[in-house]
Each structure stands twice: as structure tokens, then as C-alpha cells.
């Protein structure tokens, strides 16, 4: 995990000279959490839990408080039901394993697909990409560059063609070629646009005509610099496609991505990956402990 100034490192400093958990300490904590995009509701929840666990004005060392905080924050982050993804393994008995990638505009879906393909291939899996974003200017060209860069085949049609038809083709082609992993790119869409969300539901449904269980994974990509709107994104994409996992991108910047705490807590969807750059190597498997630790890290 990349270390940067953890947003909770300030807390350590703020309470270093203090001996009790008083209102000032809790106010500092509130500021640190909301300042990392955790959001007011979840922040108040965390603070209430801390308050319940430590009697106010009680003596508490920095490290003690930090540990309690870490526990509380960790408990908001749900674990993935299966840990195989850490080694880019696919679940036993599922072949091809179909991943559908969704999210609002510009969050990093296509790039994340390139990175996933690279990692799966590196782990010895055969991969096929499906270019079901037929809408955004040069979206197919962009995914094609990624397929060449990584060295994996791509199924595509002309711009403007039916995305469902592309997804169908890709799954069919992958199944007949017996590949291990099929990753379907979709066009970015804002979650408040009903017709676009319906289209996504339809793309998902079409794949089932080839493989009744597909897609096995619906990966929602969230931009790490997004604020509270990400919660609504998670809600609407889940309603349309039953999202099963999350990727948080652009965490190589100064954004903290704290809104993910609210999201995984509220929707019980695990974070699987984080994006930390634009190259194909810049994907990390999400590590809960490391992520929470990084929030407290004083390294900048």
C-alpha cells in the first residue's frame, strides 16, 4: 500500500499533548474524518462508537485511541467472500469467469480493465476483452490500445452498435475459445439517468443467454476523489446491476477516498482493487489492514 499522509495522523498529533478524550479530541476526529470524505453520517457513527467505548474525560493514550479507531474503521469495511482474487485466481469450476465493469463517466473503468487483464494474464490466465462502450468517442480505440498493450484478444463492433450485442458476442466468443476470464467494458453513465441504467440491466441480461450465471462479477469503479455522491452511485448501480465488488481509482493523488467506508458499510460490497496510476502495473489488491494503517500513517 502506498503510504501518504494519513488523514488520521493529525489525530495522533492533536491528542499527543492531551491526556483525556474530551470534546476537542472528538471535534478533531470529526474534522479529520469528514475532511477525508467519510461523510457526516458515518463520521457521527464512528464518533458515537468511540464515545460509547471510552468514557468521556477518561485518560487514554494516543496509541490506545488509535487502536480503538482502527478497530472501528476496520469493522466498516466488509471482506470479500472469496479471497482467491488476491492472486488473480478465478473461482473453482467457473470458466469463463465473466466480469462486467460499470461506473459513472471518467472514473477509470477502461483503464482498470487494462490493468486487470494485465494481472490475470500475469497470473497465467487467458483473457478476452469485450468493448461494449460503443458510445463515447473513440472508446473502442482506447480499449483496443489496452488489448494490444497487454496482449489479449478483444471482441468489438462498430461505434454506435448495440452494447448488448457486443457483450453477447464477447461472452460467446470467450466461451467457445474456452478462455479463463472475460472482461466487459461499458460506457460511463450517470446513475440518475434512468434509460442508461436500464440499458445496463439489459446488457447484463443478454450475457445470460450464453452463460446463465454470467456476469459472475459486477465491478463498480469509483473515482477516489469523488465526494458524497459516490454513495448514490453505489446505490443506483447496485439497483441496476447488483454490484458485487468495488475498485477505487486515482488514489495516487491527494484524495483519501474515505467515502468508501460509508459505501462498503451501507451496501456490504467489498473493495477489491485500488488504482494508483495510469500504467497497467498501477493496480493493487485492496488490503484492509494496510488501508486502515495508511489512514494513520504519518509518512508523506
Amino acid at each position, binding site marked *: 500500500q502506498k503510504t501518504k499522509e494519513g488523514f488520521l495522523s493529525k489525530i495522533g498529533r492533536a491528542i499527543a499533548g492531551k491526556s483525556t478524550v474530551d470534546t476537542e479530541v472528538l471535534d478533531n476526529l470529526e*474534522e479529520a474524518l*469528514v*475532511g*477525508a*470524505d467519510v*461523510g*457526516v*453520517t458515518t463520521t457521527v457513527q464512528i464518533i458515537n462508537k468511540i464515545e460509547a467505548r471510552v468514557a468521556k474525560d477518561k485518560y487514554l493514550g494516543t496509541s490506545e485511541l488509535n487502536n480503538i479507531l482502527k478497530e472501528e474503521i476496520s469493522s466498516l469495511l466488509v471482506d470479500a467472500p472469496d479471497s482467491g482474487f488476491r492472486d488473480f485466481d478465478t473461482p473453482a469450476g467457473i470458466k469463463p469467469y465473466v466480469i462486467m465493469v460499470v461506473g*459513472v*463517466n*471518467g*472514473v*477509470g473503468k477502461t483503464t482498470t480493465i*487494462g490493468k486487470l487483464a494485465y494481472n490475470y494474464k500475469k497470473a497465467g490466465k487467458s483473457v478476452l476483452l469485450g468493448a461494449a462502450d460503443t*458510445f*463515447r*468517442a*473513440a472508446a473502442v*480505440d*482506447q480499449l*483496443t*490500445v*489496452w488489448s494490444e*498493450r497487454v496482449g489479449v484478444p478483444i471482441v468489438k463492433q462498430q*461505434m454506435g452498435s448495440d452494447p448488448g450485442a457486443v457483450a453477447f458476442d464477447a461472452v460467446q466468443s470467450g466461451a467457445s475459445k474456452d478462455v479463463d476470464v472475460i472482461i466487459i467494458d461499458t460506457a460511463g453513465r*450517470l*446513475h*440518475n*439517468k434512468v434509460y442508461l441504467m436500464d440499458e445496463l440491466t439489459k446488457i447484463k441480461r443478454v450475457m445470460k443467454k450464453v452463460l446463465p450465471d454470467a456476469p459472475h462479477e459486477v465491478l463498480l469503479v469509483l*473515482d477516489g*476523489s*469523488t*465526494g*458524497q*455522491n*459516490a454513495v*448514490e452511485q453505489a446505490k443506483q448501480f447496485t439497483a441496476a446491476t447488483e454490484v458485487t465488488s468495488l475498485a477505487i481509482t*486515482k488514489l*495516487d*493523488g*491527494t*484524495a*483519501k477516498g474515505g*467515502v468508501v467506508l460509508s459505501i462498503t458499510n451501507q451496501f456490504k460490497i467489498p473493495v477489491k482493487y485500488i488504482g494508483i496510476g*495510469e500504467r497497467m502495473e498501477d493496480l493493487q489488491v485492496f488490503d484492509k489492514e494496510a488501508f486502515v494503517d495508511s489512514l494513520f500513517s504519518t509518512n508523506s
Partner: protein
Amino acid sequence: MFESLSERLESAFKQLKGEGRISEINVASTIKEIRRALVDADVNYKIAKELTDRIREKAMGEKVITAISPGQLMVKIVKDELSELMGGTEAELELKTNPTVILIAGLQGSGKTTFSGKLANFLKTKKNKKPLLIAADIYRPAAIDQLKVLGEQIGVEVYSEPENKNAVQIAENGIKQAKANGNTVVIIDTAGRLAVDEVMMNEVANVKAAVKPQEILFVVDSMTGQDAVNTAKTFNERLDFTGVVLTKLDGDTRGGAALTIRYTVDKPIKFVSMGEKLDTLDVFYPERMAQRILGMGDITTLVERA
């Protein structure tokens, strides 16, 4: 989506009813609610704090005349304060120079390329200009193709050098061509970059130094959270941009980042982008934005009820 500020305040106001004057005690919980509503709308928490401190000061002096409740007064003070902050400076593009050079910059995926297309279309159809788009993003896969597709859609020429890996040269050569071809406006689309990426920030600063643009527009995603303050500050320090473009406002975000940026760098918001199609560009309305951030679509009803 979020509980609107007016909903939140309504309960706080219930307790204020019947008070004759806004006092330290009856304003405290209201101020906290306002602060939290701002933060939930993605206004930077430090700025939200400064703002609410100011609002508190303004409120403290106020005597409540019998016709207006303290609640009504608070709503008015908050709304006026935000509207004033969001507005101010004249926000027209500076288009006198021939050709006018416009540099587009911002974070990855914020909507720069799409906006470049929209702006070219706007200047062509509404301002009677002859634009040239320059593809100076040498990194993103198919970035040139993307701009070319947009250029074709609106009938605007795109200058690119697919083999050249020097953004400064491409921008300079593009401007030479614009002069030769009699283009009256040049729009330079650049790669997305993080404020902390020194190499990339130097690149765009070098492009600026080389082409001396009349306008430098900072394109920012309206869904951005607390980090908007860092990004805006750094981009402004490096580029001294002339205006801000808020994108993806067709979503349901509150858009508190707009307030954060306005407050942090004091540069006007010149355009809002409201869709993926190339004719979805609008000018900026400060008051509308203030109400959106506050979730105060229903402000008049509230004032009537308060």
C-alpha cells in the same frame, strides 16, 4: 439524496420560534447543522467552518423584527452569503486577440476533451469563430482519436502529431497552423494530470509559457469531494488559470466543490457542462449553484412556513 439543509434547519428552527433575537445560545445548533449540510454537499470542511463562523457573526448582530422569525433570518443570511461567494467577477471569455489561445487543463477524466469539443462548437455556432482544436494529450490511449471524432461531429479541424511526444512542440506547431489557416480561436486539449505529479505539472506549465494563452480553463468534475481544495490550489499556483469549468452537472451531486474552488482561488466559473452531447454547455448561474449546494430548491416554501 441528502437530507436537504432546509429540512435539517426546520427542526432547529422549531426550537428558535418565539425568540425575539438571535443569540449565542439559540444559534449554536443551527450553525452546526448548516456546517454539516455544507460538508455533506462536499464543501471543504475548513471552508465550511470559516463560512459558518462568518454566518454566525452576521446573525449575532441581527435583531429579529416581529414579522420575521430567527429561522427565516438564518436561511436568508446563509443563502445570501453563498450566492455572493459564488458570483462576483465577470465571467465572459476574453476573445479579442487573433487567434485567441485557450488552454484546457485538469485532473484525469474530469471532462477536458469533451469540454474542448463543446467549447469549439459553442464558439463556432454562437460566436461566429473559426476554431482549431489541438490534441496535446500524448499519453492517454486513443486521446487523439477521441478529439478527432468530436471535431468531425462539429465540423471543426483537429491538429495532431501522432508521432511527436512533445506536448509543447505540438501546441506551438498547432498555433502556427492556426495562423496560416486563419483560425480565430485555438483550443488546446491537454492530458489529465494529478496536482502532485511534478513532471506532468511542469509539462502543462511549459505549454503555457510557450503559447501564452489568453484563457486557461481549469476543468473540474462537480462530484469532487474534499480534495478539490488541494487540486484547485496547485493548478492555480502553477497556471494562474483564468476560469473554471464545472462538468457533469447533469448528475445529482450537490456540487460543493464549486464553492470550495471559488473560495480557495477566487476565479470565476465560466461554464458548466451538463451532458455528454456536444451542445450541453451552459453559462454559470451563481444563485442557482448556491441553492443547489444548500439543497434549497424549496427555500421559498420554507420561508413561508418558518
